[in-house]
């Protein structure tokens, strides 16, 4: 459903990505692996319209979305929970979630439904719905970030390092939530430092290095590939 072809992008005329091709299939979890600085975040920012690519095409459900503004891309069905979360820290958890559905605000009943789904997925957020999101713990803030992307009613959810800086137990919780979300039919594009854990829940994976795809394949194959294990899984 998401097809990225020959994508180059970067900052201030210095490309970080060099002609990258990836696809994320409908309803699958696709994981992006790679060291810091390999271009995962740049790729996500380019897909969601925060950065303009210098070359290449991005198609979503057969329609070109390259160079569209971020708000149009959310409208097309791609929601991005970014690295560093970027919540509205002084607003309540509930307001954060409601604003996530800004592009779908006309459909009030669906918004209500999505909000309840988020609260079902992360019951702690319901408990803390009136608290400013900035006062929550790191794990809870991550849940708000994922929830805010979900209220946009996406077909594809981009999660950039959702487990960064979280305690192992919370990481497990977050990844379980990702599986849960995927079970409802939403495709997930995930960047993760915990390669083993990510590959275990994913269908397909790509390994990036210095802005290029160096390996790709089914998650199972990657998990058992000796190169990947040596380079990224530390085994």
């Amino acid at each position: 459903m998401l097809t990225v072809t020959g994508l180059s992008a970067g900052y201030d005329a210095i490309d970080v990505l060099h002609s990258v091709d990836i696809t994320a299939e409908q309803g699958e979890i696709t994981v992006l692996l790679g060291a810091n600085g390999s271009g995962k975040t740049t790729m996500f920012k380019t897909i969601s319209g925060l950065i303009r690519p210098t070359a290449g095409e991005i198609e979503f459900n057969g329609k070109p979305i390259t160079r569209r503004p971020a708000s149009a891309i959310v409208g097309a069905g791609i929601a991005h929970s970014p690295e560093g979360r970027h919540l509205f820290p002084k607003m309540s958890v509930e307001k954060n979630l409601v604003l996530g559905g800004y592009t779908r605000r006309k459909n009030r009943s669906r918004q209500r439904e999505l909000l309840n789904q988020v609260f079902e997925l992360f019951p702690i957020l319901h408990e803390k719905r009136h608290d400013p999101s900035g006062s929550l713990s790191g794990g809870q803030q991550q849940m708000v970030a994922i929830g805010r992307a979900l209220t946009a009613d996406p077909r594809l959810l981009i999660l950039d390092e959702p487990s960064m800086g979280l305690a192992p137990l919370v990481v497990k919780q977050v990844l379980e939530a990702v599986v849960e979300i995927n079970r409802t039919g939403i495709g997930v594009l995930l960047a993760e430092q915990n390669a083993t854990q990510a590959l275990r829940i994913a269908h397909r994976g790509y390994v990036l290095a210095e802005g290029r795809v160096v390996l790709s394949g089914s998650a199972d194959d990657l998990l058992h590939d000796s190169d990947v294990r040596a380079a990224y899984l530390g085994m």
Partner: protein
Amino acid sequence: MTLFIQQLFNGLALGGVYCLAAIGLTLVFGVLRIPNLAHGSLYMLGAYVTYFFLTAVGVPYVAAIGLAAIVLAVVGILLERLVFHPLRKSPHTHHMIAAVGAMFFFQAVAQVIWGADFRRMESPFEGTLSIGGAQISWQRIIIILTAVAVLALLTWFIKRSIHGQTIEAVEQDRTGASLAGISPNTVSMLTFALAAALATIAAGLVAPINLLSPTMGAALDLKIFAIIILGGLGSIPGAIVGGFLLALAEVMTSTYVSSAAGEAIAFVVLVAVLAVRPTGLFAKAVQR
């Protein structure tokens, strides 16, 4: 006591005007991080455009303010699109220089159209109300009531309506807002439109009390910058409290000390508050 009541109402009326003008400045700062030195010029133009609708077109006072607010909202949007938007990636100094340029431009425009002489606008609300022996002009009471009503409406808009919430969203995290599908461009334009319209309401309300001149905005600029720094940059409650606080201090000092001291007291209060709370009374946007 009569004098005190009289001055209390004068202070509240002035405070209402300061608040309306200062909120726009603080909103623009919150969203775009620009100290818009041309804000006082928008206020000045708002007064003249109200004057134009009232005298040249001949519509009633309230309608004149309303129409002027719409005209100035468009001017605000143009200012954002033509001056600040193209500079969004340049250093801060460029914004300030551009704002000063816009300020001179607006002053020149007003001077070309209406001349450099002072103009007087008649108050449509004649007469006074007697409160505790003091004679309060209806114009001042109208200013206070309108300011309170507009401030309440604005607070509702920003805190409760989803469109108003987009302003706070961009203020708190621009990237997060973009990813939620909120266009920071649209929000910037909305903020400028709102700021200019509020300044116009302030100007239209106070015009029958003060005289109109192309440089009337510059004097206000100093005061409202003091107010938003006092209240905490980017904070709406800060602008409201700061506006009334400075206006009352100004009026009371003018009455009981001297009018020269009244002009300076704003900055004495500012220095005193910043000495105790360097981020202002309601620090919000400054703490990152």
